[in-house]
């Protein structure tokens, strides 16, 4: 239940937004171009027979000539379907429907063949759709050929068995074993019953017709209504794929209803406002976006236009925004739903409600008909209409009293109107006041229609006053919806104040003492911006008046911080600045030459030592004479030289382990040869001493 209610509210909001201005325009060229777009031809056909029928029927109603290019291929499909003994009842029905429009060449034999099949189908029909397709098929055969006599012998029985599916509230079930009742089914049933009535060979029982009429009235009692007067039939069974919403349900009901009224030839007392409400519902959809919806909308409107119930007339306004400065005239057009001309009638402006106040002024003024464009024109707006929002209420008066039975005018039509004009802005001035005395420190006049650049300065003990006056072209005070004073600090913090009106004048006084907290104690330059605008003000403006240099006290510690300003997105996403690593500077070293000089100095003592040896006449006379000691002495010194060489190699390239290994071997060798040499030398010198 809540779900359905929710849906209802949604639908209400939706349609309310779609036809907000409560003006329902009749079918126009935009529907025609949409139809050509939506029903697209691919491979020479519109698709299935059902789609073809929908396309052709829509084109027929809208008066679009586009049969020739698809006719050949479609007719071939129609003849195939009708001729084939295995085609389903539904396909036969669709083929006959298409044939009804295209008038393909079918012989009477074909008709006779399918007629017997259809009659058999009627006899074993169980569901509503079986009846619908078969009765509909018979109706179509009857329309398309005069050679074949189509009669229903047992019309009463068929009527009763269809009627048995009806529900108490005027809705129908699709079949006896499906308990869900549907409005869509009601429309289908009405159309089927209309077929039964017109095919009946003898008159149908009057009491049956009477109960059916009663059902229709009950069905209309359950109609849903929007605020703007549009009516529709709600469909509870919603299937996302079939999309049997309220549009298709309402369309099918209208179709069935008009068919039934035509067939039964009796009068049916349905309220005219519900019929025009239905028309408003279909028109309120605008231009649907799907082919099926367009078909349903157009077909329903065509039924309403040609119905015997009552033909709704639609009052529409080409423009609801009227400018006083351009001297726009109020124009009203009355058409039928499909946009064809209305019968002779006159339009009367009955009442004007001003949207601000509750009172309505009664006008009762007849609009003048411009016969060439068929537009009713109100040449001058009534005297008491100033700029503002109004609701105009119109009435349609039919000239011929006979027409009142045929046409539904839908009573009064109310239309919201905007009367716009140029508002004059005068006596604009800005001033700085001293707080306690209220004396004027600086006062500057402003020209709000031109450029302004005032430069003011104030401290927290002073006040800022801005005042101006707005008058309508008729000299009355005007109060706009938007009158904002904006102070914008250089850091981006904004403060907005609504400029209020006192009597004739608009005035705002900003006492900075009370505002320091709100201003976050931010001193500095504030830009002053004034925005005045309204829906009916043609010269709405946004103006920079200048700037104000504010000197506010320093913020106490606990004061609120100004809110963060949004970061500009472009700056957030740009590339970052490049970073290069700064390498450690290499150690400072003395120049090469200096090192070489010191190298030379360091080597000097060695040369001094060598020179000293020469000076002292050093000799090697103590070298052993015999072979074995000499060999050992030579090996000893070579060993020392090898150790020193090893050290050099260690410096140049060897690592510690190799060096120590080599040094170990060399050490052992040196110990051995050194011992031999030194002991030889020692024994020699001992011999000398003892000697």
């Amino acid at each position, binding site marked *: 239940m809540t779900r359905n209610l929710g*849906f209802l509210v949604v639908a209400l909001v939706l349609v309310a937004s*779609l036809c907000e201005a409560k003006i329902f325009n009749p079918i126009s060229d935009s529907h025609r171009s949409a139809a050509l777009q939506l029903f697209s031809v691919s491979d020479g056909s519109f698709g299935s027979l059902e789609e073809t029928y929908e396309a052709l029927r829509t084109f027929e109603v809208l008066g679009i000539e586009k049969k020739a290019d698809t006719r050949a291929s479609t007719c071939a499909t129609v003849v195939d379907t009708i001729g084939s003994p295995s085609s389903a009842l539904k396909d036969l029905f669709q083929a006959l429907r298409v044939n009804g429009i295209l008038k393909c060449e079918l012989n009477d034999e074909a008709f006779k063949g399918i007629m017997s099949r259809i009659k058999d189908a009627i006899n074993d029909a169980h569901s509503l759709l079986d009846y619908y397709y078969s009765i509909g098929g018979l109706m179509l055969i009857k329309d398309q050929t005069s050679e074949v006599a189509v009669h229903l012998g047992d019309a009463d029985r068929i009527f009763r068995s269809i009627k048995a599916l009806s529900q108490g509230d005027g809705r129908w079930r699709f079949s006896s074993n499906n308990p869900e009742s549907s409005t869509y089914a009601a429309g289908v049933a009405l159309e089927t019953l209309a077929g039964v009535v017109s095919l009946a060979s003898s008159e149908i029982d009057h009491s049956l017709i009477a109960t059916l009429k009663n059902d229709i009235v009950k069905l209309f009692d359950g109609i849903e209504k929007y605020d703007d007067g549009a009516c529709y039939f709600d469909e509870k069974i919603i299937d996302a794929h079939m999309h049997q919403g309220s549009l298709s349900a309402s369309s099918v009901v209208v179709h069935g209803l008009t068919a039934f009224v035509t067939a039964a030839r009796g009068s049916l007392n349905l309220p005219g406002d519900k019929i025009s409400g239905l028309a408003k519902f279909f028109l309120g959809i605008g*231009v649907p976006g799907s082919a099926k919806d367009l078909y349903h909308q157009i077909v329903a409107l065509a039924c309403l236009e040609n119905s015997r119930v009552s033909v709704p007339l639609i009052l529409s306004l080409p*423009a609801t925004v009227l400018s006083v400065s351009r001297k726009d005239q109020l124009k009203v057009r009355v058409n039928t739903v499909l946009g064809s001309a209305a019968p002779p009638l006159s339009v009367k402006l009955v009442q004007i409600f001003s949207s601000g106040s509750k009172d309505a002024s009664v006008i009762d003024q007849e609009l003048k008909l411009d016969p060439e464009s068929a537009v009713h024109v109100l040449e001058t707006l009534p005297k008491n209409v100033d700029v503002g929002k109004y609701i105009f209420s119109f009435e349609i008066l039919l000239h011929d009293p006979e027409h009142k039975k045929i046409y539904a005018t839908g009573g009064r039509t109310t239309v919201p109107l905007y009367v716009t004009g140029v508002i004059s802005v005068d006596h604009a001035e800005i001033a700085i006041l001293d707080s306690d005395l209220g004396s004027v420190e600086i006062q500057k006049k402003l020209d709000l229609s031109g450029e302004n650049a005032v430069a003011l300065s104030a401290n927290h003990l002073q006040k800022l006053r801005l005042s101006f006056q707005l008058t309508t072209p008729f000299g009355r005070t005007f109060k706009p919806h*938007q009158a904002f004073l904006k102070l914008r600090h250089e850091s981006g913090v904004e403060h907005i104040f609504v400029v209020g009106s006192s009597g004739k004048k608009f005035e705002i006084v900003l006492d900075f003492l009370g505002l320091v907290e709100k201003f976050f104690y931010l001193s500095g330059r504030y830009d002053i911006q004034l925005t005045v605008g309204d829906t009916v003000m043609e010269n709405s403006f946004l103006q920079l008046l200048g700037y104000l240099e504010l000197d506010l006290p320093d913020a106490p510690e606990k004061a609120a911080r100004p809110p963060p300003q949004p970061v500009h997105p472009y700056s957030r996403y740009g590339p970052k600045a490049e970073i*290069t690593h700064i*390498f450690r500077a290499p150690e400072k070293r003395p120049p090469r030459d200096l090192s070489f000089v010191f190298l030379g100095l360091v080597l000097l003592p060695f040369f001094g030592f060598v020179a000293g040896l020469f000076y002292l006449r050093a000799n*090697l006379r103590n070298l052993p004479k015999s072979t074995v000691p000499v060999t050992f002495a030579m090996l000893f010194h070579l060993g020392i030289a090898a150790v020193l060489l090893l050290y050099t190699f260690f410096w140049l390239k060897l690592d510690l382990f190799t060096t120590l290994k080599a040094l170990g071997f060399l050490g052992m060798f040196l110990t051995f040869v050194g011992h031999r040499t030194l002991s030889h030398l020692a024994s020699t010198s001992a011999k000398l001493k003892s000697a």
Partner: protein
Amino acid sequence: MAGRKFPTVLLLILNLLSFLPFLTISFSPDHPTDRRILVLLDDLALKSSHSIFFTSLQSRGFDLDFKLADDPSIAVKRYGQYLYDGLILFSPSTDRFGGSLDLEGVLDFVDSGHDLILAAETSASDLIRSVAAECGVDFDEDPSAMVIDHTGYAVSQIEGDHTLIAADDFVQSDVILGSTKIEAPVLFKGTGHSLNPDNSLVLKILSASSSAYSANPASKLSNPPLLTGSAISLVSVVQARNNARIIISGSLDLFSNRLFRSGVQKAGSSYKYEKSGNEQFVTELSKWVFHERGHLKAVNLKHNMVGGTDEPSMYRINDDLEFSVEIYEWTGSSWVPYVANDVQVQFYMMSPYVLKTLSTNEKGLYHTSFKVPDVYGVFQFKVEYQRLGYTGLSLSKQIPVRPFRHNEYERFITTAFPYYGASFSMMAGFFIFSIVYLYNK
């Protein structure tokens, strides 16, 4: 009997075959465009009144699944697998979704990298507001507030309340709005929102003019409205860190056939555009949100020593290295080289030591070379590429940097020659002295 069975089997195989291309082109990292989209509507009439938008999506190969927002069979996830790649919420007044979907469900859907289009209206439900709030967008608290602009409205013969706004303050981003400039203003009718300043991912795409304000047009203003001027965002997008994309619009009518087809003349200008910019705007935006554009991938992140080709396991300080990465952009059907001059690499250890712009060969390869800093530790090559509208790239590769080994320092320093000289002269002296001392007489 067998004759009848055969066509059935054939049909089955054909059916399976027809699914095959569908499976291969569904969403994957290598094919990031969304495919299956769930559309939740308040009313099925929207399907027809917004059909141009839906048809354009379908003609681009998206598989739309329309459901009423309160349909009890709604499920976006089954057995831990998401059934859809994208979600369109055209149900501004829904208080509760049907089925298993709820606020958390929608957020989880986005958190797992899926995309969302959300359209609200005046009197949007709390559910829709909280979805938007989670994305960093706050709609006007007043449910009846609309964006009104008395100087930037669309001139109309029948709508005089200045709530139909001709907005032309677009974000400057070719990747989001396409490279073709949107000439005609976009018609907007609905509620405005502000962006949460703490959220750095949300971005204003279409903002109101400075004279706009958000208020209830039917009632008099006594307090200043909460949202005014260009701070009002009309349409915003979010690109989450996981590259999920979201569009939030304050107007459902923005997507409608009526405004798509409508002409537009901005107040104060005498030029009337035949067609509003809505269709182009919405189409381009939907291409972006469903990853047909602006989706980047980076592959083949490589580095090596100058002159080498292999990737070393470690660098030494002061080495010269070469770095390269390939970046490609998804066009909706294939990956093409991405060309830009602002891709940067960082050599990063707690903070970037080197940040360098990469040069490109215009074929997707970005490369550069630099010297490893003289600081050792565990570094990362980092490519952080965040650009307006593009998916973010965030790559990193770890690489240790070691100091010099003991034998890699400089030997034979000239400055030390006096010391060397001293040692060797000492050694030579010792050698000579040992001979002279032993054998002198």
